[in-house]
């Protein structure tokens, strides 16, 4: 069976969006986690399925086609997890929800920054270490920071976080 490559590609992209939308609406938005395995598993399955369906009907090898699918999938997953992290951890969103409550019921907006939680995360990731009551960068942390500053400088990004 010959299936036009463009049709396969568009159908694949549509399936990716449906998978990610399903994961967000049915699973991720109802849980505290940011990363869930369901989309990764589904997308791997879709790549295998689409790479095996019919001939490509176009002058492109199967490996080239799978490479295209991998680029699209990894970009979509990266964008999706960034979106989920933004939704769940946005301080501005937390402030908005907080100010929708009566002033008596509100938390201090400062709680949403939660510096301690972020330091704990970075300790766990190995970016910083704690010694004698102080925090210092590890070698890994220095590399991450260098990379971050390089990208931010190149792209002229204002750090507003």
């Amino acid at each position, binding site marked *: 069976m010959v299936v036009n490559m463009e049709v396969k590609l568009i159908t694949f992209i549509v399936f990716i969006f449906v998978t990610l939308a399903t994961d967000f609406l049915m699973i991720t938005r109802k849980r505290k986690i940011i990363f869930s395995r369901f989309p990764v598993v589904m997308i791997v399955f879709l790549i295998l399925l689409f790479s095996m369906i019919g001939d490509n009907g176009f002058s492109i090898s199967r490996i080239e086609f799978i490479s295209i699918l991998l680029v699209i999938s990894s970009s979509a997953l990266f964008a999706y997890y960034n979106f989920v992290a933004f939704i769940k951890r946005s301080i501005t969103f937390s402030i908005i929800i907080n100010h929708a409550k009566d002033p008596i019921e509100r938390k201090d907006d400062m709680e949403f920054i939660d510096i301690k939680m972020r330091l704990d995360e970075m300790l766990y990731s190995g970016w910083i270490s704690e010694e004698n009551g102080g925090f210092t*960068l590890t070698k890994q942390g220095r590399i991450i920071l260098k990379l971050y500053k390089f990208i931010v400088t190149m792209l002229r990004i204002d750090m507003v976080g």
Partner: protein
Amino acid sequence: MLTITISELTGRGKILYTRFVNLVIIYIMITIMILVIVSDYISFSIWDYFTLFLSPTPIILAWIGLRIHLSNSVSLNLLSLLEDGGKSYKQIEKDYNAIKRISDRVNNLKAGNYISSDKDENLENNIKSKLVLTLIRFFRASDGYK
């Protein structure tokens, strides 16, 4: 990649939210330009048009996500505070100046008419604020909202 490059060069470092329309326009213009150039050599079907428009969107969305993440990341900002040497928790708190950063966010929300400017600082009772609040509560169902 061409869309992203041109958007970055013409954006002059402005925040992505303020030039999102610019990004979309550049994307559409480049896609049309490619179609016009290539159509002299290849005949296009309707599926080719859809493929050309649709296939770069995950990459562009990934780029947008990366850029927003880099500019808004509190953790990376905290990391940069430790560049000059070790600091205690209190020193990090002081250097990060969380009070000012929160205050800036609240002031931006006031300027955008999401929060009132009176002493109660309640969420404004307008369509925009209600819509945003509904969306946030829907997206954050894990926080106890339905």
